[in-house]
């Protein structure tokens, strides 16, 4: 699903965020990405999202060679990847429903189909009754669930989450993880960046450990 071959990323100011990263993720896998802030977790995610281009090496995602992708193809590529952010990135000028509907509107789905899928996704994260509210009145955990509904509404093959439980207490983050696990059970490839060690231990999944841009660990436990 994802393959990194000798991937390095050096920024214009000379800072090397990632150096010579190699790993492969199989379809349907669920794994974690960990490391201190500045270790390169976000950069790695950005490379997969095509928000950054690697300085060196090759990245393949779902059969696409990312180096060969033109910038006009990127939007269509991104439609197959759901993203969840720590700060949700919700739009507060529209309802919960419209926030979740956004990826479908962009993809150009028919009106009724959008309504059905949005409600299905909101039902999945147990927020169906709040579809008409503005997300600003929701709690942090609820906002994060809206973000997740938006990430999965377009039925992506892959879900990327950058510190999805960063601001949440353990109980809420457990809820979020349960959601991710359920998506994973139906075949979605899931990659979660987190530095929450307790969470990593509890989940007991494959972990990629980054230290100063180098991949120092790849396996189930530390």
């Amino acid at each position, binding site marked *: 699903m994802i393959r990194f071959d000798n991937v390095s990323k050096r920024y214009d100011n000379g800072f090397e965020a990632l150096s010579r990263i190699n790993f492969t993720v199989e379809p*349907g896998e669920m794994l974690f990405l960990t490391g201190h802030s500045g270790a390169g977790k976000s950069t790695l995610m*950005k490379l997969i*999202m095509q*928000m*950054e281009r690697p300085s060196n090496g090759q990245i393949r995602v*779902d059969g696409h060679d990312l180096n060969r992708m033109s910038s*006009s193809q990127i*939007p*269509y*590529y*991104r*439609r*197959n990847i759901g*993203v969840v952010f720590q700060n949700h*990135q*919700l*739009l507060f*000028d529209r309802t919960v429903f419209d926030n979740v509907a*956004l*990826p479908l*509107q*962009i*993809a*150009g*789905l*028919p*009106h*009724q*189909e959008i*309504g*059905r*899928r949005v*409600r*299905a*996704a*909101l*039902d*999945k*994260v147990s927020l*169906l009754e709040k579809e008409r509210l503005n997300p600003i009145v929701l709690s942090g955990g609820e906002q994060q669930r809206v973000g997740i509904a*938006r990430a*999965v509404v*377009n*039925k*992506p*093959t892959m879900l990327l989450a950058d510190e999805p439980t960063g601001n949440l207490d353990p109980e809420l983050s457990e809820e979020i993880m349960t959601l991710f696990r*359920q*998506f994973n*059970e*139906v*075949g*979605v*490839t899931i990659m979660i960046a987190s530095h929450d060690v307790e969470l990593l231990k509890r989940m007991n999944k494959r972990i990629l450990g980054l230290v100063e841009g180098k991949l120092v660990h790849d396996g189930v436990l530390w």
Partner: protein
Amino acid sequence: MKSKRPSVTGNRPTTRPSTGATRGASPTRRPMREPEPQPQRQQLGAVQSKLRFADKFDAYLAHHSTSAVDSLMRLLETPFQSLMTWLVIAIAVAIPAALYVGFANLQHLGENWEGSSQVSVFLRPETTNARAEEMRTRLEAREDIAKVVYVSPTQGLAEFKAQSGLGEVVDSLEKNPLPGTLLVTPHLQDGSDAAMTLLEQSLIADPAVADVRLDMQWVKRLQQLMILGKKMVFGLGGLLALGVLLVIGNTIRLAIENRRDEILVVKLVGGTDAYVARPFLYTGLWYGIGGGLLALVVLGIGFFWVSGTVDQLAALYQSNFRLQGLGMFGSMQMVLLAGLTGLLGAWIAVVRHLIQIQPR
């Protein structure tokens, strides 16, 4: 996994909540990006893809109309600000348009005079009516002359008396000061200056002729002036259009900055540049069209304000000249042109600013 599809897609909207679980749980099994096949279309591959294209096209049109409506609504949400921008554009559009209308009217006036192009041949005072009549027939026989009318001194005086309103003054004159006049209408193939001069020279050669006046000369000068004026109108119009471009470009740039977060999110979930740009391009179009319509109102008010005076003036000159406005077609052109200028301004802002906003 295949058996699951019909149950998922076949659900009627009334059973929505129950679909939720199945639906949310089944996002992954399909190849990327392929929208869910609809059960009744499944057997007909070709038809299905056609219909799906139709669906996408519908969605594309729908986004155009929602972008158009939403951007207009956004403008109306801040009526005062929008009105200011519209007024600026309206003024920039109305000034060259008003000048254009003015020159078009002058040109129209000039054309009327050109149609009555005449050469006045003033005869010496001692010339008798008989001699003048003889000259008239002789001249009319010439090929380069279409028509000659003889106005005797008595006729001329009577006409002057009737038209000038100076009847009593004329009556008090001891003798008729007016010479006999031949009004010659030339019949020239090319109507060039050289041909006119030739005709003039041959007319003045006659010993009975005192003077020859070409009534055309000043009309020609007026036409040259009007060509110059029109060029200036276009130049001014171009400068003001540039001003409109800058105003709209800057307004759109601010709008883009205000919606930066939204643009970032849309791009992250797969919005193309065209998708992101669309509402802003419509905003530019609305600014332009609104400004154009307002300019039409400004011009209309100005027209009614001036046309009464012009009518009175025309009446004094015994002319049935009437001021002409832009007309239906011209008005539409003006609004369209303003709209296109707005669109272009927005497009420039979009290219310069929107494309640069990339998720980081």
